[in-house]
């Protein structure tokens, strides 16, 4: 009873105001609607459709009757060679992300700490150039460099005429190289954003306390850039696992990855359900990897945000 009498006066003002002012949930909903509406139409619906496809026995576009099945999710068991391919894809993903992280961090560090004004702007634009070039052109240009007798060999033979070929086209390192080239800008940008916000005085304070460059790097710069590195790693790792262009063009025969297998299901084998099921399985694997890593990261940095 007392609660009821107490609640009443508190509840009446919003009710009275509703006559001439919209309730706050309405404006919130109105503001969110375009964003979430777009997300729903552009991402959520297609994703749901794919999820539904992955449980079907055949692509629902022919005349064959469609029935529910889990068989595509058993693909890793029924076709064991897929496990090897998935493993290879993850290894390529790890190498690419690792190399991007190392190169990207130091490139961002140089950009943030050793340049200023115009030079910095120009360098940033140069770093973004791979974004602007067509991916196909970018990847094919690497074949010109890496193939036997390509630019790399020409360069080598100009200093050491008798040497053999060091071209490594159609190998796994070639795939990683192409992927690193394509995804490095993400890592540089995310690290750069984390590093430019570090006040010079923080570095100077570390120096005044007796820290040399190595200590500053490992105890101050790296931990402070960690959020940028993590974001960059996610932005690199996820698309690299699904990539098919670089493995195909630079990997040749060894370039069979999850990305190419899934692409084949959609474009060659016309087995959309299997492609969708493989995609969702890989998504689950990637999420599991991130969950493990974020747990490890959180523990090693002592609950740091």
């Amino acid at each position, binding site marked *: 009873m007392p609660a009821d009498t107490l609640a009443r006066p508190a509840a009446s003002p919003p009710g009275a105001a509703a006559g001439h002012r919209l309730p706050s949930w309405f404006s919130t909903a109105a503001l969110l609607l375009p964003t979430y509406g777009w997300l729903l139409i552009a991402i959520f619906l297609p994703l749901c459709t794919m999820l539904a496809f992955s449980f079907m026995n055949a692509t629902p576009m022919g005349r064959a009757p469609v029935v529910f099945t889990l068989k595509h999710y058993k693909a890793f068991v029924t076709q064991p060679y897929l496990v090897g391919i998935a493993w290879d894809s993850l290894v390529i993903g790890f190498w690419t992300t690792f190399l991007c992280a190392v190169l990207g961090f130091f490139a961002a560090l140089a950009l943030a700490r050793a340049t200023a004004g115009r030079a910095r702007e120009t360098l940033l634009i140069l770093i973004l150039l791979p974004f602007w070039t067509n991916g196909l052109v970018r990847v094919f240009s690497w074949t010109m460099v890496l193939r036997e007798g390509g630019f790399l060999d020409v360069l080598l033979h100009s200093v050491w005429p008798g040497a053999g070929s060091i071209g490594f086209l159609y190998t796994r390192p070639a795939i990683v190289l192409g992927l690193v080239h394509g995804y490095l800008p993400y890592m540089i940008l995310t690290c750069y954003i984390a590093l430019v916000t570090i006040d010079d005085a923080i570095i100077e304070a570390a120096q005044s306390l007796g820290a*040399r460059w190595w200590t500053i790097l490992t105890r101050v710069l790296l931990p402070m850039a960690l959020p940028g590195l993590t974001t960059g790693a996610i932005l690199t790792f996820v698309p690299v696992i699904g990539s098919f262009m670089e493995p195909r063009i630079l990997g040749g025969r060894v370039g069979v990855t999850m990305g190419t297998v899934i692409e084949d299901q959609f474009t060659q084998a016309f087995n959309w359900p299997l492609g969708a099921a493989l995609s969702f399985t890989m998504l689950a694997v990637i999420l599991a990897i991130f969950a493990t890593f974020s747990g490890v990261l959180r523990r090693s940095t002592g609950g740091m945000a």
Partner: protein
Amino acid sequence: MTNVDITSVAKTYGQTPVLADITTHFAEGSFTSLLGPSGSGKTTLLRIVAGFITPDSGKVAIGGADVTDTPVYARNIGMVFQSYALFPHMTVAQNVAFGLARRGIRGAEARKLVDRALEMVRLPGFGERRPKQLSGGQQQRVALARAVVIQPSVLLLDEPLSALDRRLRQEMQVELKRIQRETGLTTIFVTHDQEEALALSDKVAILDRGRIVQMGPPAEVYEQPKTRFAAEFLGDTNFLKGTVVDGALRLSDGTLIRTGAPLPATGAAAMVAVRPEKMRIDAAGKAGDGAENRLSARIDHVIYAGPALTYALTASDSTALKIFAQNSTGAIHAEGSDVSLVWQPAHTIPMEDAA
């Protein structure tokens, strides 16, 4: 022995000389303020001592050892920045322990020293917090603890209190002075705030365009400014100009002003400075004992600020003057009235840069 000696230090950026031939000595355990207008080179001088800037010429010695070519990390300095510059990814205790770890002090011993340092800055029990969870004043205390805990040879502070509001600043001034006394660290303190400099320091150095124009105990620098710049920069000053006649200064209207310190030779142009609070208004115009200086003036206006009064006057030689008076009698001299100003010859300071 952790005195700091600077010998003929000069620094030029491009064409502009920022520091010109500075030679000075900071005694062991002393608290010296560097005071000067913006761009006078205070920060540059401090950073040369720290090692962040290499001077074009000259030498820096800390504790008798030449450190001109020693990198920052090997100089054993404690530095406090205006922006606090705490490591945001570390706790307060980790921040304070950072310098200790660089000196190989870890574990229980480090923890003891950190606790003691945090106690000294009155932040015991704050060790597990992040810098973000502290107020500005608390962050600056942590920065101070971090700089002091390593027992540096010299403590360098570049406007450490200017990001704090007035009340907090005054509180921190007291703390800073206490900590400096307790630790006995040779301290160099850059500030814009004259009162802060006068209140805290054993010595004040006034910089003007890359030169130390005067350095000495606060009272000496305030009471006996050597140059017009020093007199004007530190507090308010009345200047009187005239020619020297028989060891006194004759103003353009013929009034003779005597000084404590000797003036230049007869016939030379000279200028003297008198602090506004040293002059007294003598409305009755009764004859003095003849030992004091006397100058007639007219009161232009009065600024009433409760306990204190400020008078703006025009002297008989048409110099504009300013006088600070305590409102002790409650009697305020009327605007427009003609009065006599009376002050001691000892408070009349000849300026070295006369003309």
